[in-house]
């Protein structure tokens, strides 16, 4: 009896300690980013580019990079989400135990393991070298899409599998065809989970640097057109500024990192509110 209580105590403490240990890096990263990033996180930083800023100038900002990131991630999401969602629906609702579904599932697994630089190299070799397309935000979005699709497929697949088969059966038993059951019963039931899966994908690709290096190329000036010419992106901006030997540049890098975190957080909050509003109706 005493032994059981003791074990319970020890395990409880152990779980609490590991929990704190797991959270420690997260909070220290957040804390460092906020502390160092707030130094340059100001109106100028959010509204100006790096065009014409000298090496030791304290001015300049990441506006061009914010625009680039929003456009690249936006385009990648537009391409990846329909593809990934349809793949997940196929795997859960139609594929069953068929050979083709197994192959698709295997390919998705392999894609999950593709290093992000390889995705960038692939788009560089295929889109820019072979097809003679220019460096552009869109080329970066292509690379990000390759990374985002498998994450969103896996996430959505799990969420769709959580929808009880009783609901599908209830719908079939009403004489509702399968496609309508999926559209009107299964997807709405899984919606909050699907949004989470998509946001995980967005968060993941928003921070990617490697695939952008060879596709978006990076720039100091504002380029609002994601289809023509080099752009910047926040991860590229941070990568570039952090490597410079001046404190003013390093401060800009921290502010860029902070902006990146805030963008992902804001997207998450907006997505969640949208789902909640829909559920309330």
């Amino acid at each position, binding site marked *: 009896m005493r032994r059981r209580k003791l074990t319970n105590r020890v395990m409880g403490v152990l779980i609490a300690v590991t929990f704190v240990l797991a959270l420690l890096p997260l909070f220290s990263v957040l804390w460092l980013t906020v502390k160092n990033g707030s130094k340059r996180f100001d109106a100028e930083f959010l509204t100006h580019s790096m065009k014409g800023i000298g090496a030791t100038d304290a001015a300049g900002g990441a506006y061009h990079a914010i625009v680039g990131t929003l456009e690249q991630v936006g385009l990648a999401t537009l391409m990846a989400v329909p593809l990934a969602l349809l793949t997940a629906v196929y795997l859960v609702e139609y594929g069953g135990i068929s050979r083709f579904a197994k192959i698709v599932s295997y390919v998705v697994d392999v894609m999950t393991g593709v290093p992000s630089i390889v995705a960038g190299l692939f788009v560089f070799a295929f889109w820019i070298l072979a097809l003679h397309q220019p460096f552009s935000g869109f080329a970066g979005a292509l690379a990000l899409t390759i990374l985002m699709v498998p994450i969103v497929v896996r996430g959505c697949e799990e969420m769709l599998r959580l929808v009880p088969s009783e609901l599908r059966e209830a719908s079939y038993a009403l*004489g509702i065809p399968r496609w*309508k059951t999926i559209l009107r019963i299964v997807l709405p039931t899984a919606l909050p989970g699907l949004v989470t899966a998509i946001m995980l994908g967005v968060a993941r690709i928003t921070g990617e640097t490697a695939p952008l290096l060879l596709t978006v190329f990076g720039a100091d000036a504002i380029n609002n057109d994601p289809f023509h010419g080099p752009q910047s992106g926040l991860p590229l901006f941070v990568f570039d500024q952090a490597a410079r030997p001046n404190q003013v540049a390093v401060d800009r890098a921290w502010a860029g990192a902070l902006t990146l975190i805030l963008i992902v957080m804001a997207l998450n909050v907006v997505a969640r509110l949208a789902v909640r509003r829909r559920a309330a109706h």
Partner: protein
Amino acid sequence: MAKRIDVSGLDAYYGKVHAVADVSLTIEPRSVTALIGPSGCGKSTFLRTLNRMHEVIPGARVSGKVRLDELDIYAPDVDPVDVRRTVGMVFQRPNPFPTMSIYDNVAAGLKLSGVRRKSVLDEAVERSLRSANLWVEVRSRLNKPGASLSGGQQQRLCIARAIAVEPDVLLMDEPCSALDPISTIAIEDLMVELKERYTIVIVTHNMQQAARVSDVTAFFTISAPGEPGRLVEADTTRKIFSNPAEKATEDYITGRFG
């Protein structure tokens, strides 16, 4: 409305597993037919062959004939979606659509079949909820989620949902097994009312329930584990419970087995 079901030589399989063998049975309209028997005897599987829900499970198939009045529901040119529209089903566990309100749950079958007119939907929702003896309890909160109701109310909601599309036959797969006695009585009373208009087939583990609500009882059993379920006999409920023709039925009814 209320069609006769005529089953002959029906076999059902799950992949290689032979679940139900050679069932022939006529189910009369405007009556309640109870399917009883031990677990695994194939009565639920048999029930699901009557609206082609059996084949929803991957690898499941059926051979034999099921006729709904004159229509052979397994004929090659018959769409299972149409069959299910005529043969409604209520499941063991109440399964209202969680994203929908009470109103939308009842209206779901009609809405998703393309009915848009609000007046038609309103009328159907009220009529179905009244038929399911649920109207008085929920009429003031039709826009609340269906999942906010109690278990017994949810099951009546599912019955309302099933009859909203005006089927000819209502299949019920152990509809009271997840409910308390009060809710069970409510559903049983409902069945007696509904049989005026529908052909009702109910699977139940509860022999008292079969005796209380059904006009005809069909007894299924398996001879040994792994063997397919078979129909032992079907007769008026009074006959089955007082003087069954088969020894196996009597053993089951009297509790000597199963």
